[in-house]
């Protein structure tokens, strides 16, 4: 174990980390993003083990065990989340999940995904912080509020009609 070996292996860990980073930033599939995270973690644990060997004690290895444990937890949770997300929108595209964006921003033009027309039936809340009745709403907000309320109403109507349809079906 000489210095240049340590150096080489640390750089190897760094390269794995960087590869994972690139993967995480560029890939759009949820699963591949998750695997990129795991690549980053394995780069880190490689470094830990090199240090462990270098210092001739177990501390690095034990930390690597921790990393492994956390990675396993992450895998379990991530898999469960991916499965439940896939059930919702039938896509693995991470860009399909941008409900938390600011409403004034345009939607990603490339963000189309199959099943996008299947809308969710959750009410959209108006932006918090202003009482729409008490004060004149800024014109920028006005459009948003109207949009949200009209969406909500259309949802209500939709759900009514759909329940009516299902009733008819049941009778049939």
């Amino acid at each position, binding site marked *: *174990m*000489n*210095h*240049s*070996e340590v*150096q*080489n*292996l*640390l*750089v*190897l860990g*760094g*390269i794995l*980390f*960087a*590869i994972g*980073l*690139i993967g995480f*930033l*560029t890939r*759009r*599939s949820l*699963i*591949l993003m998750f*695997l*990129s995270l795991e*690549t980053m973690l*394995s780069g880190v*644990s*490689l470094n830990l*083990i090199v240090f*462990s*060997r270098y*210092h*001739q004690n177990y501390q690095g*290895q*034990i930390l*690597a*065990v*921790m990393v*492994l*444990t*956390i*990675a*396993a*937890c*992450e*895998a*379990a949770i991530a*898999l*469960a*989340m*991916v*499965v439940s997300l896939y*059930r919702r929108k039938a*896509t*693995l595209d*991470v*860009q399909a999940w941008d409900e938390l964006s600011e409403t004034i921003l345009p939607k990603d033009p490339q963000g*189309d995904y199959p099943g996008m027309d299947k809308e969710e039936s959750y009410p959209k809340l108006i932006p918090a912080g202003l009482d729409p009745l008490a004060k004149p709403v800024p014109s920028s907000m006005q459009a948003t509020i109207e949009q949200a309320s009209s969406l909500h109403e259309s949802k209500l109507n939709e759900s009514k009609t759909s329940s009516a349809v299902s009733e008819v079906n049941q009778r049939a």
Partner: protein
Amino acid sequence: MNPLPIDPKNLPLVSGDEFQGNLSQILLLVILLGTAAYLLLQHGLVKSKMMAASGAALFAVAGLMAFTSIPMELESVVRMCFSILAVAGGIAFITAREPVHAALGFATAVLSACGVLFMQSAYFIAAATMIVYAGATIIIFLFVLMFAQKAKLQQYDVQLTSPVIAAAVATSLLFAIAWSVSEPGEILPVKLDLTRPYSLAAPGSAPGEAMPPVPDPAMSTEQLAEFTPGKTSGLGRSMFTDYLLAIELAGTVLLVATIGAIVLAQKPERDPS
């Protein structure tokens, strides 16, 4: 004869004086790798074969460079082979259009990294990584990928978000890491840590085999070999004495994650009507 020759008496002594910086080499390597990654990422919707080929060529050059920087010894060569395989697997992983290919690339990277870990005498970690990552995680993710796979490639499989910035950011981060590693710094001479007892428990209190005594410089080679890292029993002893709380905590986290995963993956309950 000891088949895995670790002679504690002849452990190499490293110190700051011995350092020979090969900064320029490493920086060149980093730049090469960054460019290669960028070029390989340019597959987009229309696969650019020229760019991919040049990226692969750059990558090959970087690999050759790395090879020339090491001494031609069996161990070093094997280690370097594993390293290059790991990096190649990683690159394949991030550039593959087909998600299953990408996952297999990741498996390659992880398995090669495990090879490196074996050569660092971290046997337990290596085996555990193989079982956990390669054996379980990737298999299950392959499983999901195969189920979610559509007849042809999806847009989100072939189109990448901001590859240029990503490559630049990662390269600069790698640059920082390489710089910090190659920076001449004061490195204290290290040898076997003989002063630290491996356990707070009284010797002989553990079942199975007697607890070894605290390492003593007067011990014979064979006895000292018992204390060298890489011995799984030593790792286990350290894990369950010095770091007991941390390990138990990790186990608890694992349990919680299991329960969480079960809850998350449940199908939403159907409407009774």
